[in-house]
């Protein structure tokens, strides 16, 4: 059995198990943790997707927040159905990110990091200044329409999985190869006739669509949003998920989100000191787990995969993800 089909089978079974558990086994508290994991995983995957072109995009927090507000406006003000709200949130995130990226993606490295940080904070301050969306106190009563309420956790998991699968597909496509090429050496990419700025904007737009939908799911899971939920810390936590989970694979972002979100539930009683543990976990992970949780999982399953498939995994060499 080729390893790709094994991977697909395992992924499908795991997806079904999570969905079944979410709907029938988890209970209210369990479901809320699972939803939190989903939105965190989406934020992490969005941040990581822009890391493919070599940039650390703190503005992920802004697009996440824009998605949250747009979806809340859609369902609370206009009574639109949830799917419409989710799509509107994703499109709003993507659209704003295109404008932002067109101006800022000409810079890279530390400069882009700083600009994106500034953008995240400006977006948060803008949320606090608009009275119509509740200014500092934010919006309340954000619920999915009644027939869907019972299924909302399940929907969250399905949407998150679909978006993660989409990001993974894009990463594995030729477009993903071009993303990594830009991370490696953007001059070479220009010299072979590709418009680096356009490709980077495209990457940012896709990532921001996902961040926007993540924000929308967050808003409807939490029922309450306020500007404080969308500070640059959203991106910092996303970075922690990516680093601890392992940035070499999108599953690393998911693993990091699962691990730290569950850990966070135990640490929540510590209040503000919670952040110390996240910081500590991040430092420890960088020191002792350079490839993150995904790296460990890969090492543990390697003998099993080798037994399943005797041929050398040439594809994984060809497409090995840059560190």
């Amino acid at each position, binding site marked *: 059995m080729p390893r790709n089909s094994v991977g697909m089978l395992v992924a499908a079974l795991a997806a079904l198990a999570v969905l079944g558990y979410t709907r029938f086994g988890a209970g209210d508290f369990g479901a809320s943790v699972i939803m939190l994991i989903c939105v965190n995983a989406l934020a992490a995957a969005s941040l990581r997707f822009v890391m493919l072109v070599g940039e650390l995009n703190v503005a992920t927090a802004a697009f996440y927040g824009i998605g949250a507000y747009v979806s809340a406006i859609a369902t609370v003000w206009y009574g639109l159905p949830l799917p419409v709200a989710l799509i509107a949130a994703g499109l709003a995130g993507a659209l704003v990110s295109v404008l932002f990226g067109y101006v800022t993606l000409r810079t890279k490295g530390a400069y882009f990091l700083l600009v994106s940080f500034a953008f995240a904070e400006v977006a948060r301050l803008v949320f606090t200044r608009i009275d119509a969306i509740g200014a500092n106190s934010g919006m309340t009563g954000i619920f999915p329409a009644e027939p869907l309420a019972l299924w909302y956790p399940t929907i969250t998991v399905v949407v998150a999985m679909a978006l993660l699968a989409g990001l993974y597909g894009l990463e594995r496509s*030729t477009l993903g190869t071009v993303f990594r090429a830009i991370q490696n050496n953007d001059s070479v990419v220009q*010299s*072979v*006739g590709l418009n680096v700025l356009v490709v980077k904007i495209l990457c940012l737009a896709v990532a921001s669509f996902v961040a926007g939908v993540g924000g929308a799911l967050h808003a409807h899971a939490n029922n309450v949003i306020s500007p404080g939920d969308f500070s640059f810390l959203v991106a910092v936590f996303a970075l922690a998920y990516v680093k601890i989970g392992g940035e070499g694979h999108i599953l690393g972002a998911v693993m990091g989100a699962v691990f730290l979100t569950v850990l966070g539930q135990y640490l929540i009683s510590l209040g503000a000191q919670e952040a110390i543990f996240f910081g500590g976990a991040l430092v420890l992970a960088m020191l002792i787990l350079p490839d993150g949780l995904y790296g460990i999982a890969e090492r543990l399953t390697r003998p099993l995969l080798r037994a399943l498939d005797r041929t050398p995994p040439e594809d994984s060499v*060809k497409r090995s993800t840059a560190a």
Partner: protein
Amino acid sequence: MSAPTGTAAPVLTAQGLQRRFGGIMAVADVSFEIWPNEILGLIGPNGAGKSTIFNLLSGFYRPHNGRLRFFGEDITGRTPSQISRKGLVRTFQHDSLLRDMSVYDNILVATVSTVRDRQARHRRVEETADLLGLTDVLAELARNLPHGHQRMLGVAIALATRPKLLCLDECLTGLNLTEVGRALEIIRQIREEFGIAILFVEHNMRAVMQICDRIVVLHHGLLLAEGTPEEVSRDPKVLEAYLGSKR
């Protein structure tokens, strides 16, 4: 100055190129042509302006003065990717690779802008790798290749776009004698097979004299001499620039 191919129109015309960096005049006033199917050498002592010329031709720098025409079309001020899509493609002296990616992906990226079909891209990658002797290392990461292969991969990336004018920036640096011989053979073969013009910047004078049809000599940002390898190597001005004058 005479065109080697008689009546044909030039592939590239550079007219009065000028580029300053602060107070330094890197390229003061340089004009030359590249003719179809010729290998033109661009030489000059360090600091003569060779790399600046390269960056001007490929659009990485904008000239402060002067015009560039490619097959008669004005390409002055176009971006690197626009110029590349027209068929003027350069390699890089340093940092010419996607280091953390496989050789296959390095070449694949170069096919994206010119080839739409997946299968055709795959064929293009294999043909290009074959021509440059990289077929056996397609799955290796570029950074793990021996130096000689890395140099050839730099050429492969440019060639995979199937350029009309291939600009090679010191692609022989660090190669041993056998590798230089092999590389020159490959470059000749590229010219035969694709019928393209090649601009060749190189410090290795023996290689330049061997392979170039014509040579342009730069010195202090100005054109010092132009002609066949024999003419240039006998030119007293060239000897003076390279060896210093007798006092």
